[in-house]
C-alpha cells in the first residue's frame, strides 16, 4: 500500500493540543479506525494509536528510543527514556537495583504503609476529602521522595514540581515549520528545574562525600571506581524523569482506579470486601485511563514499513499507550471500567527494552495506598455534588476526586 491510497486525514489539521488535553479519546478512536499510524500535524510527529502497532514498534529491532521534542527540551540529555546503547544500559543499570521486585519487597510495605496512614489520619474523620490532592498525590510523592533521598522536600513542593514539569514536557504543539508553537510554555518547567537544582545540588554535594542508602546517592556511586562518582549533569535528566513521571503517575493510577470503581459501585464493594482484588482493580484502572497516555516515542533506525506506511530512517513515532489500551480489537467496550474484564496484558507500562523500570514499585505503592484507604474508610463514596474531570494528553488522570463517607 502507498500513502496515496490512504484515507483522507485532513480532519487532523483541525486537532489542537487543547482538544487532546481535554479529551484525546475521540481523536484517537478515529485514528485507530482510519490510520493506526498517522502523521498528526499539531504534534509534528507520527503517532501509533492501536495496540498492535504500538507493540510492534516498541519491540521492533528497527526502532530505538527517542525523547519527544518537548520532552527533550524539558529534561535535557541523557534522560533514560530517550537514550540507547551503552548510555541507556548504564542508566538502567544505575536505576534498576532499587527497583528489582525482590529488593522492593524488602522495604515497600514499611515505606508506603506508614505514609498512607499518616495522610489518612489527617482526614479520615472529616467525612469528606478531595482524594487527588489529599491522598493519591501525597502518598505517591512522599513514598518516592523518601526513597530518592528527598525527605526534606515537602510533599506539596514535589507535587508542584511534577505539575510544572508535566505541562512543560507535554507542551508538544509544533508549527508547520517544526518549531515549538508555544515556547513560553517551557518557562515554568525551567523555573521548576532551577528550584530543583538549588535544592538537590547541595544534597548531591553531601552524597558525594557521604554516601547513604538513598536512591540518588546510589546513582552517584554504584558501579563507579573508588573515589569517583557519576557526573551530576549526566544523572539530572533522569532525576527529572523521576520527578515528573515516577512522582506523578502512581497518584494518577490510584485516582483513575478509584474513579473507575466509583463508576461500578458493586465492583468497588467487592474490592473493599476483598483486598486481594486491589491489584486487579489497579491493572484495570491503568488500562482504562493510562497515566502515561502519550509521553514516549521511538525513532526508526532504517527505512521501514509499519501498518502500510513507509517511514524513512530517522522518523519519530509517538507511542499512544492510552489509546492502545482502548483498542476495540483487543478489549470489549474499552471505555468501560470493568474489574472482571479478562486480564489481558495492557500497555500502560509500555513494552520492549524501554518498558517502565518502576512497574513493580509503582504497582505496590498504589496497592498499599488503596488497601489502607479502604481499610480506614470502607464506606467511601464519590461525592456526587462534584464532577470528575480528567485532563492530559501526555499524562492523564482526574484533576480532582471528591469523596464522602459517614463518620
Amino acid at each position, binding site marked *: 500500500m502507498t500513502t496515496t491510497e490512504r484515507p483522507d486525514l485532513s480532519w487532523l489539521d483541525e486537532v489542537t493540543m487543547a482538544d487532546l488535553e481535554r479529551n484525546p479519546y475521540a481523536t484517537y478512536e478515529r485514528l485507530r479506525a482510519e490510520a493506526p499510524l498517522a502523521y498528526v500535524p499539531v504534534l509534528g510527529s507520527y503517532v501509533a494509536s492501536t495496540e498492535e502497532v504500538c507493540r510492534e514498534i516498541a519491540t521492533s529491532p528497527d526502532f530505538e528510543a527517542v525523547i519527544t521534542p518537548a520532552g527533550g527540551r524539558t529534561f535535557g540529555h541523557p534522560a533514560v527514556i530517550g537514550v540507547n546503547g551503552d548510555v541507556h544500559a548504564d542508566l538502567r543499570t544505575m536505576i534498576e537495583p532499587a527497583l528489582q521486585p525482590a529488593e522492593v519487597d524488602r522495604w515497600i510495605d514499611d515505606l508506603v504503609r506508614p505514609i498512607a496512614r499518616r495522610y489518612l489520619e489527617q482526614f479520615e474523620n472529616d467525612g469528606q476529602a478531595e482524594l487527588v490532592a489529599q491522598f493519591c498525590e501525597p502518598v505517591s510523592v512522599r513514598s518516592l521522595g523518601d526513597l530518592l533521598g528527598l525527605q526534606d522536600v515537602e510533599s506539596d513542593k514535589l507535587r508542584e514540581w511534577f505539575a510544572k514539569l508535566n505541562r512543560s514536557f507535554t507542551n508538544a504543539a509544533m508549527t508547520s515549520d517544526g518549531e515549538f508553537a508555544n515556547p513560553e510554555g517551557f518557562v515554568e518547567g525551567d523555573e521548576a528545574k532551577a528550584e530543583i537544582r538549588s535544592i538537590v545540588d547541595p544534597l548531591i554535594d553531601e552524597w558525594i562525600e557521604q554516601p547513604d542508602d538513598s536512591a540518588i546517592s546510589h546513582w552517584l556511586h554504584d558501579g563507579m571506581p573508588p573515589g569517583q562518582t557519576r557526573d551530576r549533569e549526566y544523572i539530572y535528566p533522569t532525576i527529572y524523569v523521576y520527578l515528573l513521571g515516577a512522582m506523578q503517575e502512581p497518584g494518577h493510577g490510584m485516582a483513575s482506579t478509584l474513579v473507575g470503581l466509583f463508576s461500578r459501585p458493586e465492583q468497588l464493594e467487592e474490592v473493599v470486601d*476483598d483486598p486481594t482484588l486491589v491489584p486487579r482493580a489497579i491493572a484495570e484502572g491503568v488500562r482504562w485511563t493510562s497515566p502515561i497516555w502519550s509521553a514516549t516515542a521511538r525513532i526508526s533506525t532504517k527505512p521501514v514499513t509499519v501498518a502500510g506506511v513507509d517511514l524513512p530512517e530517522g522518523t519519530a513515532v509517538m507511542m499512544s499507550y492510552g489509546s492502545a489500551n482502548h483498542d476495540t480489537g483487543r478489549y470489549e467496550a474499552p471505555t468501560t471500567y470493568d474489574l472482571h474484564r479478562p486480564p489481558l496484558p495492557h500497555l500502560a507500562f509500555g513494552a520492549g527494552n524501554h518498558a517502565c523500570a518502576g512497574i513493580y514499585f509503582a504497582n505496590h505503592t498504589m496497592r498499599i495506598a488503596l488497601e489502607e484507604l479502604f481499610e480506614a474508610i470502607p464506606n467511601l463514596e464519590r461525592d456526587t455534588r462534584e464532577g470528575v474531570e480528567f485532563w492530559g494528553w501526555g499524562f492523564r488522570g482526574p484533576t480532582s476526586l471528591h469523596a464522602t463517607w459517614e463518620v
Partner: protein
Amino acid sequence: MTFAVTVGGRSVECDQDQALLDACLRAGVWMPNSCNQGTCGTCKLHVVSGEVDHGSSPVETLSDEERCAGMALACQARPRGDVELRPQGTSAARTANPLRDMVATVREISDIARDTRRILLGLNEPLTFDAGQYVELVVPGSGERRQYSLANTADEDKELELHVKLVPGGVATHGWLFDGLAAGDEVDISGPLGDFHLPPESEDDGGPMVLIGGGTGLAPLVGIVRTALRRHPEREVVLYHGVRGEDELYDGDRLTELAGQYPNFRFVPVLSHEPADGYREGFPTDAFVEDVSTARGWTGWLCGPPAMVEAGVKAFKRRRMAPRNIHREKFTPADA
C-alpha cells in the same frame, strides 16, 4: 482407587471419589475453606500438575477461564490422577483440627423456641475444634449431609450442642430431627469444618467485638462469645440476636447471666416482625448502627440468613470496621 495429592510439600492419599479438601483435612493438612458447598470460593486453589474432575463446582464460583487457568475448588474437585496443589495467596502454616468421622449418641433433645430445638450429641472421644466451627450430620437413609454450627467452647469437647430450626418439608429437620429423633439414637457426623472462629489466643488482642446472629445463627456466636470473654474478661462485646418474634428467642437467660459476669458484654435481642414489650424492634443490623457510632478497630461476626449477613457487612463498613475484620459464616442452610 486412590491418588497422591501433594500440597505444600506434604502428600496425602485421596480417593477418586473424594474431594481434595476432604482428603487434606482428614490428614491434618490445613487449607483455606469455609462453606464446603462450592459457593464461597474460599478453597479455590491452583492445580500445579495433574488433572481434576471439577464435580459440581458452580460456574459462578469457578469460571471457565479459571478452570482453563488451572484453578479448582478443593471442596468439590476430585482427583483424576496424582495431583499437586498450591493454595492461593499466602499459605501460612496453620494447625488443622483434623476432620473426622464419628458416631455420636443423642443425649438430649429440647424444644427451646418456636420450631427450634437444641440437640446435645455425646461423643466417645473428644473432638478437637475451635469455637464457631461446624459439623455435618448424615441424614439416615438418604445419604444427605446437613451442616450445623457448634455452640460449644473448645473445652466442651465431648458433648456437642446444636441449634436446629425446622425447615418445613426439609429432609433433615422435618423428616428426621423434628420427627423421630430420640435420645439414645446414634448419628453419623463429620467435623470440624469451616473458618468461622476466633484467631489463636496468642493473636487475639482482646479488641472490641460485635456479633450478630439471626435465628439459630446464634449457635456459633454462643461458643465464640464465651471463648472471647474468657480470654479477655474486660473486652467490649455486643451480641445481637435477631428473630421475627419473641417466641423465637432462646438462651436469653444464659446470655443475660453472662452479661452479669462480664461488665463490658451486652446481649441485645431484637424482634423484626412481632414487637413485644421490653424488646428492641427492627433488624439487628440496624440496631447495631444505632448503638455503635464507630467500629474502627472492632471485629465483626455474622451468622444467619444471607440477607442478614449482607446487611451486616454493610452496617459494619458504614461504621468503618475494616473489611478484613468482618467474619461471616458462609454455609447456608439447605432448602426443603
